[in-house]
């Protein structure tokens, strides 16, 4: 939820405490070979804890492994 992302279409990244990175706005995700990775419509959550089974996306595993991260 951001009031700037859609108007400017710039990508906005929100760091969620103990959780993923929320990505909104205009962005493209590429793999190491520069190939496009399909993303769902709407905001995307990127794994920050390393435990997700659907990386680069978040699947909630940070809650199971008690990921702390930096706020």
């Amino acid at each position, binding site marked *: *939820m951001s*009031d700037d992302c859609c108007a400017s279409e710039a990508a906005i990244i*929100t760091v*969620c*405490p*103990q*959780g*993923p990175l*929320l990505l909104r706005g205009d962005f493209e995700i590429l793999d190491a070979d520069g190939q496009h990775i399909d993303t*769902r*419509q*709407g*905001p*995307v*959550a990127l794994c920050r804890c390393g435990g997700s*089974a*659907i990386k680069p*996306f*978040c*699947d*909630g*595993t940070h*809650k*199971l492994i008690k990921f702390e991260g930096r706020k």
Partner: protein
Amino acid sequence: MYLPTPRGDLSYALNNALLCNPSEDSTAYLASVAEDRLGSSLDVIYDEDLQLSLFMLYELHYRGFAEVDDRWEWNPALISLRAKIEEGFEDALRDVAGSISSVEPSSSEVAKALFALAANDAGPSVSKFIQRKANADQAREFLILKSIYQLKEADPHTWAIPKLAGRAKAAMVEIQADEYGNGRLSRMHSELFRQTMRGMGLRDDFGAYVDRIPAVTLAAANMISLFGMHRRLRGAITGHLALYEMTSSIPQACYARGFRRLGYESPVTDYFDEHVEADAVHEQIAGRDLAGGLAEDEPGLVRDILFGAQAAAAVDALAGAKYLEAWETGKSALYTGAGAAV
């Protein structure tokens, strides 16, 4: 959908009234039947007659019943009847939700409290059962039980949008837009669920299995309508949605694994796979921006936000316990009372 089979005096009387023309006075006796029912009910949450009646009264505000005149939706006698049942139901929900801790009305503290509630959810694990043990018939029962909400997924929370403002409203719209597939029919969550039901050989029309849905499952769905339709409970509806989102992505992955274990793949599993990813997004927005945003705008609603979350967790735990008790002993978890079509 069609009117369900009555389960007692009240749903029988309501059923008869709804089949009349709304201009005829067919509602005079409903209030006294409801009083009797509420007076004699041991537990509103488990009361088949009361929960089915409440479900019928709410359904008039969604897509209604094929054989019922749409004008019944705003009939004053039915609104009054609904209010009577809601009063008893809300009392029961406050009882099962338990005591509510005091939380500072800031976005981060409210989100932290909700995540902690979700993490401590000690309810029975239906998802683990589906993942590891359920047979195909039990997996079908699980879908039938879920269908009374999932085939209109998001609709009861959508009532809250015009009741909210600012940050909380924008967050609710962002989540709900996603629930509705961002306007793409094939991605709408209720459509994905229809696809799952069809793939398992089940009917996919809303309400097709209402006669098989037990009171506690109806109560879980009725609770969302109660919270969503009353502006005074706008805190509760945001807490409810936050708790739902926060207890979703990990169980959905278990469901997906369970259905794959039983030999099903996409498109049957699409619904669960979509929710693993979507709800990992939604829980963040629901915690901090929806519930947390509302708490900062209206600090007096913090207790209701937590009430909504605790009630959601408590009723889901009651429903889950009922399902597991049945399945673990080789019985059906569906409603099998008189009149239930087999």
